[in-house]
Each structure stands twice: as C-alpha cells, then as structure tokens.
C-alpha cells in the first residue's frame, strides 16, 4: 500500500467526500429534528429510522428534477454559483482535523499546512460573494434583494467572526487548525494538572469568544434570527428563489456542508476538536462534539424572531464588533501572562 492510495481513500471516502456528504446529511437531519421537537412537532419520521434518510431523499429528488434556467438570467454565473457554493465548504472541510486513516488515534487532517485557518476564513468570505453573484444573476427581484442583504450582512458579521477565530490561534501561536487543537489538548491537560487563575480567566475569555462565534455562525449559515437574506415571508427565498433541480440540490448540499463546517470550526477552535480521553477514537469524539454544536445552533435558531436588516447591522456594529475586539485584546494580555 503506497501512501498515495491512503491519501486517495482519505480524500474520496473517509474522512473525505463520501463521509462528509453523509455526515452533512446527518447534520441536516439532526438540525431539522431538533428544531421540530423544540417546536412541538415530530419532524421527519417515515423516511428511514425516525426520518434519518429524509435529507438524502430530498437531495436525490432534487437531483432528478428538471433544471430550469430563467430566460433572463446570466447563464454562466447562474450555473457557476451552485457549483462553487457546493465546492467551497467541502474544500474547507479538508483542513479540519477529523480522523487519520494511517493511525486510529491520530486526527491529522487530510490537508494540513501552516495558515489553513486563514484559508478557511477566506473561503467563508468568498462564499458570500458568490451568494451575492448567484442572487444577482438570477434576475429576479427577490433574488436581487436577497443578494443585497447577504452582502450587507457579511459586512456586519465577517469582522467579529474573523477576530474571534484568531484568538485561539494567538494562544496556540499557530495559524494551523491542527496545531490549535494540539495546543488546546496540551494546555487543557496542563490546566487540569495545575489549575491557575490566568487559566480560568483564559477559559472564560475563550467561552465569550465561543459565544460571539456562535452568533456569527448563525448569520453565516443564514439561520434565524439572521435568515434575513432568504427570509421566506418577506422575499420568498431570497437569492435562492430561481434555483431548481440539480442546482438547488447543490445549493442544499453546500448549505449542509457549511453547517458541518461551522460546527467543526466551533469544535476545533474552542472545544478541543476530535481529541478526547483515550479508548474512544477521534472520529467518535468529532461526531459527538459537532452534534452538540448543531444542537446549540438549531436551538438558538428556533428561539428568536427574525431581525430586520438595519437592526442586525446596527446591533452587530454596536455590540458584537467591540465585544470581539475586547475579547481578542484580553486574549493577547492573557497570552503574555501564561
């Protein structure tokens, strides 16, 4: 067995495309099921065990449906957007530490390099640009308004999102997700061995950071209360309004990858990634921790009414950005102490 074959399997099957796709569908099911239960409903039930195959059925059906391109749409952009929105989060997921095939207890990501955190953040930003283009190219007024709103929202949450994601990196002294996870594991072990006041302070600061991060992720994922760009009752489905069939399936998958990516980032940056006490392999920890993150996200999203775009913008700039800056400053100060 050459190294190449292992890498190929890692990319294509586990923990690569196949695993990520099924995991994304699983996360979608978790999200829907949790939301339904919190809303006093049952949610998907008759498709597979407790409806677990529901997202799978949705995607298969969409793939088989007719694909309509509006006559007045910009054909190239209209075609390109779903592919890119599908591909970007998938690409970003390859740098997330999940599970290595070469060693059962190792969680080195498929593609790791110094600075991959920056790449992930960059990909997240680029995605919004393509959402904007996708909405704009569909030549529907609802699409245009949705695209405009998506871009406006990005201005509000992208800065705190980036700032907060940097703070664990500052502590770890590395821009690599894998290294950040390793730092988390070792420093947590150190802290347990010898608890100290700066350690507690750092923990609290990072917790605040995680809170801000969750809020930004809700906006990134266009979940309530920030589903402003695809608000169903206001502008139908916003920038997605014109997509159907295969393109819609890709958009759906892309959105679900984004959900996984969000949960995985949250896990990697603040919850110690796939690491955990010994006899359980990293993959189990990864699944458990990301499921908890999805639960947190879906729980928050059913608790609120949708914000209006201007409210969201002013709120983000008034509170979220300063808080994120303060948090990063606190982390820098503490990193000097520890």
């Amino acid at each position, binding site marked *: 067995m050459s190294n190449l074959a292992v890498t190929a399997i890692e990319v294509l099957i586990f923990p690569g495309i196949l695993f990520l796709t099924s995991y994304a569908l699983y996360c979608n099911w978790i999200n829907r099921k949790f939301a339904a239960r919190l809303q006093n409903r049952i949610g998907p039930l008759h498709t597979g065990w407790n409806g677990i195959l529901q997202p799978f059925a949705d995607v298969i059906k969409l793939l088989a449906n007719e694909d309509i391109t509006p*006559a*007045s749409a910009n054909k190239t952009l209209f075609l390109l957007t779903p592919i890119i929105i599908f591909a970007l989060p998938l690409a970003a997921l390859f740098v997330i530490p999940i599970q290595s095939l070469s060693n059962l207890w190792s969680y080195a990501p498929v593609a790791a390099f110094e600075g991959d955190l920056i790449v992930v953040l960059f990909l997240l930003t680029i995605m919004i640009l393509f959402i904007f283009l996708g909405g704009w190219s569909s030549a529907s007024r609802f699409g245009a308004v949705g695209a405009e709103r998506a871009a406006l929202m990005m201005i509000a949450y992208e800065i705190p999102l980036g700032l907060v994601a940097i703070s664990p990196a500052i502590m770890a002294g590395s821009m690599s997700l894998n290294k950040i996870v390793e730092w988390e594991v070792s420093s947590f072990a150190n802290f347990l061995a010898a608890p100290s006041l700066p350690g507690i302070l750092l923990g609290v600061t990072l917790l605040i950071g995680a809170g801000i991060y969750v809020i930004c992720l809700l906006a990134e994922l266009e979940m309530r209360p920030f589903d402003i760009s695809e608000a169903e009752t206001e502008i139908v489905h916003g920038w997605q309004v014109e997509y159907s069939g295969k393109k819609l399936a890709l958009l759906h998958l892309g959105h679900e990858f984004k959900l996984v990516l969000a949960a995985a980032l949250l896990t990697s940056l603040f919850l110690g990634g796939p690491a955990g006490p010994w006899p359980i392999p990293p993959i189990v920890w990864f699944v458990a921790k990301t499921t908890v993150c999805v639960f947190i996200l879906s729980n928050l999203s059913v608790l609120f009414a949708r914000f209006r775009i201007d409210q969201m913008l002013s709120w983000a700039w008034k509170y979220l950005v300063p808080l994120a800056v303060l948090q990063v400053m606190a982390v820098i100060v503490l990193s000097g102490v520890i």
Partner: protein
Amino acid sequence: MSEREYIIPIGPQHPALKEPENFLFKVDGEIVVDVEPRIGYNHRGIEKAMESRTYIQNLYIVERVCGICSNAHQTAYTQCVEEVLGMEIPERSKYIRVFVQELERIHSHLLWLGVAAHEIGFDTLFYYIWRDREVVMDLLEMVSGNRCNYAMPTIGGVRRDISKENFPMYHKMLDTLHERTLYYLGVCASEKTILERAAGVGVTSKADAIRLSAAGPTARASGVESDIRKDSPYLIYDEIPFKMYTETGGDVLSNVLVRVNETMEAAKICKWVLDNIPDGPIKEKFSPMSRVPEGEAVSLVEAQRGELIHYLQSRGENKPYRYKIRAPTLGNILTVIEKLKGGYIADIPIVLAGIDPCFSCTDRMVFVDEGKDRMWDMNGDQLRRYGIRWYEK
C-alpha cells in the same frame, strides 16, 4: 421615479399572503416609497349570484364569502332578512349565535397571532399558538360539526342546539384557551425580538384612523373607540358585560395587544353565555320558498376584523333584489397603505398582516387590474427591466 427605486410585486402568490393579492411596492433600497394595492384576484361575483338565488340558498353562499369569518357573515345576513321580515327570533338562538361568534373570534385572532409571528420569522411561536388554537377548533367542531364554515345561524334562529351535558367540558376548554392566551400576551409584550419588530412599526395616528374610516381592531389599536357590539348592539350584546380594549400606539404591537385582549374577553363572553343561556326553542319557521316582503335593511356586525355591513333590498320575491356586502378589510386598505409608506421591506409582511387582511371577503365585488404595462415605462434600469420581463413569463 429615481434611478435607485425599483418595484417589488408582492402577490398574488407570495408566502406572506395566504391569499391571492397583489401589492406593488416602489422601493428605494430597503425603504418603501409608494404602495399600490391591486385587489380583485378573489372576485367571484357573489353579489350578482345572490340576486338569482333564494334566501335559503344564499345562506350557504354568504357563509363562503370568507371561511374565517363565516359566522359573522351569516349572522349579518340572517339579521338583515329577519329585519325585513319583521321576525323576532327565539332568545336561546341569540345566545347560541353569540357563542359561536365569539368562538370564531377566538379562532380568528389566534390564527392571526400565529400568522403574525410567522411573518416576523418567529416560527416557534407560530407552531405553539396554532397548537393551542386546535382547542377552539375542537370546540367549534363539537358545537357545529365542522372546523370551518359552521352553518349555525339560519333565518329564524340557529340550526343546531348546544347540549347542557357538554357545558362543563366547554368551560374547561375555554379556561385553557384563556390561560394560554394570557401566556402569549406575556410573550408578545416582553420578548425582545418581537418588540424590536413590532413596536413603532406601521403607525397610524388616531386622526388618520378616523379620517380614513378604519374599522375594528385596527381602529381600536389607534385609540378610536369603535366597536359595533357597543355602538350598535345586536343580538344580546347589550346585556353582556364586556370590555372594549383600545390602545393608543397605532403600531403593530398595539394591534397585537388589542387582539390578544379581545381573545381573552371573547373567552369570558362565551363563559357568560354558557352560564346565562335560557331554555326554549331555537328557531322560527322559514321555508325555502318563503317570500320576503318589500323593504330594506342595514345590518351591522362586529366581525373579527372589524365592522361588517350587509345591506338588503327586497321587492317581495323569494330572492333579494339587491344585496351588498362590505367586509372590514376593504375599509382598512387605505390605512395600511398609510402604514406602509416610509417603512422597510422587511416590515411589509407584518404591517400587511397587522390589519388581519381577509381578501376573500373584500374581493367579492372588486376586479383586478394587472396594469403591468405601465410599470415598463417607469423602469429605467436594464437589469430590473429584465426582472419584470421574467416575472411576466
């Protein structure tokens, strides 16, 4: 029209409108500059149809003017006919009519509250409210046999009696409704995201409400004391002790508070009716071929959405000579246009929903104007032009 403005059509198929309706919004960025309502997608020609049907047949068509306020329409219709006939209906039937009317008010207001929550993107609240609304639907089903379109009032009384053995159960269900509504009142008055979206949004002043002849809860939310049940009591409303709620804000929040308070008041009225209902017959005889003497009558009813007027002119046949219905929503359209101007796109659904529009009522007599062609000239921007052309396809 400036460069920055473009037009967003809402309706006739739009998730915020459960009914076919078309509003044209000229928007500048996120701000609404002008609104043009185009009512008429639901025009069925009921008034004309009624002129060729007998009085008993008309009972059913009048009920289906609107499925949400069916009992209000039937009450108004039967009152009209009975007034021209000079018929005095049995006491017990009046109580039953009020009972069903107030149940319908609870059902309609809870429905509205849920839809309003949905419009501001608060689906969880929508699901909870509609879950509790099923209680009143069950109650209506027990009383009348159907969840909507109850067919209770008939000319000369009511069609079905309510039985005494069920009263304890009715009381219990009404208590549940009252308690849950109180809870939702607390939620609506304290939950921050709701207040952000509802307070100070879509304001109508008291002077404007009077000037534009606003009706019902919409007027009461602006501080106008107008309630047919108090102003021009019909059935037994002059005997029932109940309170008229008004708010002074005139915004969406005031609309919510007025309707929630009215829901609880309606539950109290229902309980009062159950406690005080006299025994006796429930209807007078009126045969399908009976003729109604020459005359005219105006019947006013406080439907859930406001003042409802029916006007009957009879020429001594077994069919009406002219029958006119005006539903409250038409009276509130001018108000809602005032409310929408200068607001945000995001506020359109909740402000529209704020008057609890019921276009199937409104449109019996109105036609549509598509008028698409006009928009073409007004629209300079190439891309937006494309958007409109697409919409045409």
